[in-house]
């Protein structure tokens, strides 16, 4: 049993907003996480787990100002400004993996949120409305990868009566435009420093530290990528996909660096599983509550060798100009702007990881990924990679039809043989 399920089962009948604000609860979580019974597959996972447990606990117990952000907002800025980053979209994945999402999604529905919107955000808003999330002091979003975060954060900001800010990432990528973004990032950092009660000098030091951790993490991450390109690398994409939270939420922290360093080392040590699998790429995210689809892959001798969101997409940050290089980091992301960029990124991955086929998981309500699916499919087919698109929902398990899905999956895998 996983840690999340274990905690859920112990607390299910007394799950209340107060639970998460009690020290006792966090002590229990900590003990369970450290217990020898909870043995994550990879040493690195233990590091990320304890990082997220600590950050989430501190956020609930308000040990430092809490800043909500969306997936592409660089955590370096928040960590480097003495605040705790909290990524609600990832919280939704955890809630979904505990099988608790439907209740919160329904709560958002009662408030008037349409079931046509992304269930990550409906789940988050439902949790927020019920008082289950750590109260933010500030909400920061960039206007990518999708429209959902800026919009739902705006609602949440009103709910909590705190400021929220959306940063416009310029499409052009020109330096003068990036400077405008960098200035806004710097303003955000100044606001966070004052929330954290730090002065500019302390801030500079902390930001420099965050930048250097982030660069170290990037180097280790590149090593991980090289390892993963090998035939039958032992790290499977369905597990690696959880790394999206490390990538988004812990860059700039010591643990973020440790995670990738340990992973690279362990991959080197463990070597490869040895031969003959169907190599697949996974696009968009997975249903967090279901394992069946991955068991089916395994049964058919298929393996996810890479996945869309967990790869390094930026260059090392310049310690002399941290904000400008963070602006470039965001603006250079493949999810910013036209879907052509995304298609290019995926085609590159497909080539580098020598995939035989790719699966696009159409998460209901995700206009950015579903919207670009056809274009991505065409781009991959052009380089000879067959694509299977499957409709589903990453968070709402009620929208998941395993039977139908397995039939299509099996037919697809058959065709790849």
């Amino acid at each position, binding site marked *: 049993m996983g840690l999340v399920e274990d905690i859920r089962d112990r607390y299910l009948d007394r799950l209340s907003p107060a639970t998460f604000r009690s020290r006792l609860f966090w002590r229990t979580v900590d003990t369970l996480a450290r217990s020898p019974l909870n043995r994550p597959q990879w040493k690195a996972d233990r590091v990320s787990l304890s990082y997220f447990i600590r950050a989430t606990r501190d956020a609930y117990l308000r040990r430092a100002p809490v800043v909500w952000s969306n997936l592409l907002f660089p955590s370096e800025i928040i960590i480097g400004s003495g605040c705790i980053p909290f990524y609600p979209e990832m919280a939704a994945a955890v809630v979904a993996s505990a099988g608790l999402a439907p209740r919160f999604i329904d709560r958002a529905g009662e*408030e*008037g*949120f*349409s079931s*046509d*919107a*992304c269930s990550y*955000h409906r789940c988050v808003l439902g949790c927020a409305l019920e008082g289950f999330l750590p109260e933010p002091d500030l909400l920061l979003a960039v*206007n990518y990868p*999708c*429209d*959902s975060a*800026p*919009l*739902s954060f*705006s*609602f949440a900001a*009103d709910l909590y009566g705190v400021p929220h*800010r*959306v940063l*416009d990432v*310029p*499409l*052009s990528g*020109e330096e*003068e*435009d990036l400077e*405008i973004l960098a*200035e*806004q990032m710097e303003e955000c950092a100044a606001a966070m420093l004052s929330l954290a009660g730090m002065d500019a000098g302390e801030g500079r030091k902390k930001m420099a530290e965050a930048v250097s951790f982030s660069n170290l993490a990037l180097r280790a991450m590149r090593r991980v990528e090289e390892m993963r390109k090998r035939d039958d690398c032992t790290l499977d994409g369905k597990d690696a996909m959880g790394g999206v939270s490390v990538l988004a939420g812990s860059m700039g922290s010591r643990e973020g660096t440790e995670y990738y360093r340990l992973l690279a080392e362990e991959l080197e040590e463990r070597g490869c599983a040895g031969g003959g699998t169907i190599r697949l790429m996974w696009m968009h995210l997975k249903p967090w509550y279901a394992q069946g689809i991955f068991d089916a892959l395994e049964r058919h001798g298929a393996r996810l060798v890479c996945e869309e969101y967990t790869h390094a997409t930026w260059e090392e940050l310049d310690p002399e100009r941290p904000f400008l290089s963070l602006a470039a980091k965001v603006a250079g992301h493949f999810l910013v*702007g*036209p*879907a*052509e960029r995304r298609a290019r990124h995926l085609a590159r991955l497909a080539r580098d990881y020598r995939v035989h086929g790719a699966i696009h998981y*159409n998460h*209901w*309500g995700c*206009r*950015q990924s*579903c*919207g*670009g*699916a*056809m*274009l991505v499919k*065409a781009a991959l087919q052009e380089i000879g990679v067959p694509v299977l698109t499957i409709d589903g929902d990453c968070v709402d398990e009620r929208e998941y039809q395993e039977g139908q899905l397995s039939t299509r999956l099996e037919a697809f895998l058959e065709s790849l043989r």
Partner: protein
Amino acid sequence: MSEENAVGWFCAYTPLEILDAAGLTPLRRFGDPARLEAADALLHQAICPYVRACLASVTDGEGAGDAVVSRHAVFVNSCDGMRRLHDAWRARFPEHFVHLLDLPRNQDRAGERLLAREFLRLLATLEDFTGRTIDARSLREAALRREERRLAYLERARGSSGAARLRLAMGFQSTPADEIPGTEAGGTRGGGVPVLLTGNLLNPEGLVSVLDAAGAEVVCLDLCNGDRAFSSSTLPAGDDLEGLCASLARGYLERRPCARMADARRRADDLVKEVRGTGARGVIYAGLKFCDPYLYDFPRVQKRLREEGIPLLRLESDYADGHVGQLLTRVEAFLEML
């Protein structure tokens, strides 16, 4: 107007004066709501039906849709839907002029600076495309003509309501700048129950005509294909192109905001003000499906209107509005309650 000069546009934030100044004829496309499924091969079904209708109208075996056949197009990076429409369009018409104009969400100084730079970039791209230099004078003149056209619409639309008013607004958007559209104003005011209609973009032949039939008098058409594009002046001041673009950027950002802008509170405030100012007795919130900006906007507006004691009815449209007649009783019941 030759086909080469026509350029399609889709979002109410498109700076038409810049396209005019380049000697082009910007015409808004409304797509072909009757053939949405023609877009299936290019876009997922859970994407804004307006976007899908626009794409459907340029797929093979073209149906009724837009009269203009030009494939040149200027898109605004306003929402995921529009971005995806741009992507599909560019992939399909690689030889045509296809431009994606960035639009900040913030109405502050940074937003203005970014948008002004986008306008200048658009000018440069248009110069390349048309081979014609655009100077400050031609931009100023084009802006003046646009302002006259805006006032002409407001004049013609005075006293008109509902579907007729919407058709008129759409006519003003989809005909060349020097043409006054033939659509007759109508749906004369008076007699109906005054309501305010707010939402993204609606088909005048569908949901809006049901409001008319039910006896509503839509005194304010807060839609992106309705009054919103005409709501305030964007007439710029400035001596050179840079100054003009900066001023133009301010004008566009200060306009009555669409729900995708960052300042959502302002949208709710504006709505309440408008209800009080026009004497509307209730608000009809009607939007196209799968439009995130409005899906997330609704709960806030609902909450605010409740606090203000303003009755609200929510309706949903798939743009084609085939079964919209079924809404009649709901709308009638709502109006009766008012």
